[in-house]
């Protein structure tokens, strides 16, 4: 009997399409534009080696005669035309932006991943265990929150750089940067996860899991973690924008990524040097890319926060 009434089970895609989140996304033009711009830049960065007209960091593909070509105009010596012009060494600005965004996004994503893993782990433990572990962690978090995260990242980066032997400083710079930005932002995750864990742990499904003798680690990862991920996702999205800006700021200050791997921040620093001689395009296009990236990821985070918050519906 029952198989006559039973409708075919909707597939994963169909269920995702029908979900509240998907509906609210389709109804928000701002979210669609923001997601489109972010996705476009991320894809362009991933496929940079295939999209870029040439590899700007391979000296074999550079022609010094191409230097300072304005955008969309043929070079006076070689006759080559570049969409966004070239810099002093004849590097195509469009290519340097693609490769720069690659490094900015790599540092951004890795820093967020690092902060997320650290913050979630400590937050779960603090919320589940309570007691002195909890008060110690939250004390540390309170103290850390009083410092602006960019200052903290800068200080951690400076200190860590001091501890690394000079021979490895350049090679390790990107990883030190990732750890520094990650360490400056873990607190947000830890606080939110701790709060959510304290709510979840008194619920019946957790008690049931405890009664059947599940290991605390299993309870935390299999049962509690999936239920606290919503707010974490919001923080991670906004955190990505923050991490990208932090990376760009440090690189702009000349203490971030090494000059052999220029990120968007490094490109802006280089471009600033040519402002007074009139080569505005070397500065403008990397700045616009950074702005578009940070703004669209930020807007996406804002939308996600509203969409996941049932009180606002």
């Amino acid at each position, binding site marked *: 009997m029952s198989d006559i009434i039973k409708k075919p089970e909707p597939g994963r895609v169909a269920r995702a399409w029908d979900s509240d989140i998907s509906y609210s996304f389709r109804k928000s033009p701002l979210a669609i534009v923001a997601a489109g711009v972010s996705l476009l830049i991320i894809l362009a960065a991933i496929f940079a080696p295939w999209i870029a007209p040439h590899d700007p960091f391979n000296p074999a593909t550079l022609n010094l005669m191409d230097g300072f070509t304005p955008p969309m105009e043929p070079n006076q010596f070689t006759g080559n035309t570049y969409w966004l012009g070239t810099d002093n060494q004849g590097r195509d600005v469009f290519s340097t932006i693609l490769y720069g965004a690659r490094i900015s996004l790599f540092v951004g994503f890795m820093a967020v991943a690092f902060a997320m893993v650290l913050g979630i782990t400590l937050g779960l433990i603090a919320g589940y265990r309570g007691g002195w572990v909890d008060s110690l962690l939250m004390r540390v978090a309170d103290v850390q929150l009083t410092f602006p995260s960019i200052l903290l990242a800068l200080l951690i980066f400076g*200190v860590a750089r001091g501890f690394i032997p000079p021979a490895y400083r350049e090679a390790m710079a990107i990883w030190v940067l990732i750890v520094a930005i990650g360490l400056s932002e873990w607190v947000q995750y830890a606080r939110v996860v701790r709060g959510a864990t304290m709510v979840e742990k008194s619920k019946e499904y957790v008690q049931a899991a405890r009664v059947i003798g599940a290991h605390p680690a299993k309870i935390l990862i299999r049962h509690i973690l999936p239920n606290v991920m919503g707010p974490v996702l919001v923080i991670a999205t906004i955190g990505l924008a923050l991490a990208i800006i932090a990376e760009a700021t440090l690189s702009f200050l000349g203490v971030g990524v090494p000059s052999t791997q220029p990120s968007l921040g490094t490109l*802006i620093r280089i471009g600033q040097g040519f402002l007074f001689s009139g080569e505005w395009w070397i500065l403008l296009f990397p700045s616009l890319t950074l702005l578009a990236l940070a*703004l669209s990821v930020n807007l996406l985070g804002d939308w996600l926060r509203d969409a996941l918050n049932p009180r606002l519906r």
Partner: protein
Amino acid sequence: MAAFILRRLAQSVIVMLTVALVAFALFRFVGDPIASMVGQETTLAERAELRTALGLDEPFLVQFGNFVARAVTGDFGISYRLQQPVMELIMSRLPATLELAMVSGILAFAFGVGFGVYTALRRGGWASSTIMTVSLIGVSLPTFLIGVLLIWVFAVELQWLPSFGRGDTVYIGDWWRTGLLTESGRASLILPAITLGLYQMTLIMRLVRAEMLEVLRTDYIKFARARGLSNRAVNFGHALKNTLVPVITITGLQLGSIIAFSIITETVFQWPGVGALFINSVRFVDVPVMAAYLMLIALVFVVINLIVDLLYYAVDPRLRVDRANARH
């Protein structure tokens, strides 16, 4: 009350000691201090002698104690790069940073409150929506990009204002060099002060606007209007006055951020302040300067937070009740 202050003080001391430990570890483990002080010809025996004379062979805790004792008196040794006492370097650059921070703080507060009140009172007007939109862009632009764009527009294209440095400075007293008394000094201050203050301004503006909208809905405002008070008296005497408590708190806490972001602004505008000194010390791994700056910044933040916490405690009686309940 005494117990709360004591606990809060103890917490501040622990924070400072932790930062001091990091700073000390920098000194102790980054390179060999002896190697950075002596020349090529110094013999091993002389090096060992110097090591004993400087107390570098003593136990870690004794050395750390000595470090803290010296740091309290402001002695952080000599900069590796500039070969000058670190405290002297910092003191000679502090006026530049403080002047910049002060002017941008005042700008941020004045314009923040002004725009906040305006946008709250004229909700939906075209000027208000323009201000709100611009403020949204101001929040999402990274500080350094604001600085670079301002230089582009006002220094390169329009050539109205200088793009770097402090201009002419004059001495007030023995060591305070000020740029506020000369025309070129004031002109040089404008762009950096806007760059540094813009973010704080938008923050204060949004806060004032939100608080004003909240307060304007309350009964005592309606009653004030019913009494026939002028708009001016209602808006400024009653409404604005009651929004200012949280605004002043937030502004106080933002002082720390202004100092943090002054590192960025000073680098963009080549402003000869403490922040630029720190960035260069990070670049060249100049440990004494880094350690001193670390301690200085930590001290500023700890003091600001201590003051704000104590003020809260004095102003808000609920905190006292909570503490009392928690203890029993």
